[in-house]
């Protein structure tokens, strides 16, 4: 059985700050990390391998050459091998062009996959679109917001527990299929020194545009139906009154008055 896990390298968003004078992102010192939801997807994939054995875990990413670091992290966590789609012709891809390029790469080199795992969303773009778009292009069913996966006895189907607006539901699909992961199995382990050394011996292959059967106008910006026309800082709301609440009785009193004034009590 073969599981493909699509991952993305993202900036550590919590470190991103805005320069109040210019309104631009301050990116100095902002580290690049493996998107946390992608990390959950890797954990779910490795957990399946641990449970059922005989599963190859292959991780794929599209990005600039430095995205290799995110794939190295996947290999250190335990993935068997990695593929990086990297070419200046891919630059400017929106979610559609990204999904199409990933789909072509998968068709070209990994068409015998059984399951694709993706993170629920990436913390930089937050679109959550590439997963379903990839599933549609490959013509396979999808289950979003998964928190746990079980294989059926003959390994032809999976049962996915997924988050819903009112709780959870368990959905069964026949493989091949795609699952987006919103939570890991909560057994995160720190990679050992051996695993880190081991990761360097694993295969990390770079695929470029010339390896794929795609027209130039399907790639990157030319192949992207959406275009960013403007980037600007969000409107910042002005903070209201700030009071000292070290004396609890007085603070509670102030809150009651405020709630009354606004007609909430």
């Amino acid at each position, binding site marked *: 059985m073969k599981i493909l896990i699509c991952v993305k390298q993202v*900036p550590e*968003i919590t470190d*991103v700050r805005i320069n109040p004078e*210019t309104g*631009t*992102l301050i*990116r100095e010192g902002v580290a690049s990390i493996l998107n946390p939801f992608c990390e959950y997807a890797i954990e779910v994939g490795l957990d399946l391998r641990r449970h059922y054995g005989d599963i190859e875990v292959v991780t794929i990413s599209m990005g600039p050459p430095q995205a290799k670091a995110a794939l190295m992290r996947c290999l250190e966590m335990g993935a068997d091998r990695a593929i990086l789609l990297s070419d*200046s012709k891919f630059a*400017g*891809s929106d*979610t*559609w062009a990204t999904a199409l390029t990933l789909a072509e790469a998968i068709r070209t080199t990994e068409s015998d996959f059984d399951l694709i795992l993706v993170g*629920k*969303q990436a*913390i930089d*773009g*937050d679109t*959550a679109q590439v997963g*379903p*778009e*990839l599933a*549609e292009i490959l013509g396979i069913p*999808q289950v*979003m917001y998964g928190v746990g996966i079980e294989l059926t006895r003959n390994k032809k189907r999976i*049962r996915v*527990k997924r*988050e819903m*607006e*009112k*709780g*959870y*539901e368990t*959905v069964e699909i026949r493989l091949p299929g795609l699952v987006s992961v*919103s939570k890991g199995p909560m057994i995160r382990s720190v990679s050992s020194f051996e695993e880190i050394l081991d990761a360097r011996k694993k295969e990390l292959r770079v695929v470029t545009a010339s390896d794929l059967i795609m027209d130039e*106008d399907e790639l*990157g910006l*030319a192949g*992207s*139906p*959406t*275009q*960013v*026309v403007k*980037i600007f800082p*969000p409107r910042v709301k002005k*903070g*209201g*009154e*700030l009071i*000292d*609440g070290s004396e*609890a009785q007085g*603070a*509670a009193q*102030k*809150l*009651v008055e405020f*709630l009354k004034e606004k007609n*909430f*009590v």
Partner: protein
Amino acid sequence: MLIINTENCTGCKICEKMCPFGAIVVFDKIAHVQDNCTLCGACVNSCPEGALSIERRRVPQEELDRYSGVFIWGECEEKGERLIPKKVVKELLSQGRNLANKLNQDLTVAVLGDGRLAELETLIAYGADRVIRCQHRLLGHFTTDSFTTVISVLISKEKPSVFLFGATAHGRELAPRVAARLHLGLTADCTGLDINEKGHMVQTRPAFGGNIMASIVSPYTRPQMATVRPNVFSFGDPDNSRKGEIEDFEVVLSPAAIRTKVVGIEQLRDEREVSIEDADIIVSAGRGCQKKENLDLIRELAASLGGEMAGSRAIVELDWIPHTKQVGQSGLTVGPQLYIAVGISGAVQHVVGMSSAKTIIAINKDPDAPIFKVADLGIVGDAMEILPILIRELKNKG
């Protein structure tokens, strides 16, 4: 690709500062583009010399002009025995009405469901010119396969210029599937929509966890598709004198087309309990509440105000509350009249999920907590000491 006109470039480094990705480097007094350029376009308008441009593909206007009309997906939810439009549909109707008026086109709602569909006339009262009812026994419960098929067929037949979905759990599963099937652009989770001078829909959305806003257009594909964040847009009162039509659309579906089978359901919230997305008053807890037992105070305060309890991602990860009550970028966007944030520091990912609340109160020990920047009233203090007194006072008053 990003083209730098070396004759105009003065090496002023403004573009270097504007680039969110650090992909422009100025040396030898000229800007140079690096491999990690994503062609986001942030630099182009910043150049005082107009030395930067991006090459883009063109499609003939007459092809695009064949598409007309603003469509929205009228997502429904079960209420007792009926299937009625969700609150987000009213928000979409108010935005869709604006767009339709600016384009001088009709506003249509596509509603998918089974025989339990009800209250469709309210869609007209909230601004629709047409309601297209797609009724089939296999549409009673949402499945990506059935809904993608029906909406794709509807789009192919009706050829709208705009199609909007609520960025709800189902909307975010469905819209990319439809977009991919029809090879269309799609913008996720928009918080602003407008029409520009060329008649294109300008879709504005937060990126980088809400640190920056991006405006996006899909100039060469129709319909222009977007998902719209719930609880951001307001809507007015219904106008029951508005005229509109309810039409039926013939649906052809076979059970074999649905590849997912629901084999188990675990309900965390029963039907009477209000979703935090629809709540008027929310008391929300963060890591600053220190331990799970302290959430009883939050619950009690919420109950005494007639509101709901919610929380930040941090306490969902700690398993203190279920994901159904998570506010923020990776949870739900709420828009209550009153939001009380207790022990929540206010990371930007949390703030984007609640900043459209009408009144915000924050209680936090840290006077520098960013949550105070969005709060109408901020209290620097220990909530665990303040809340018991507050609850008692409210009870005495009540």
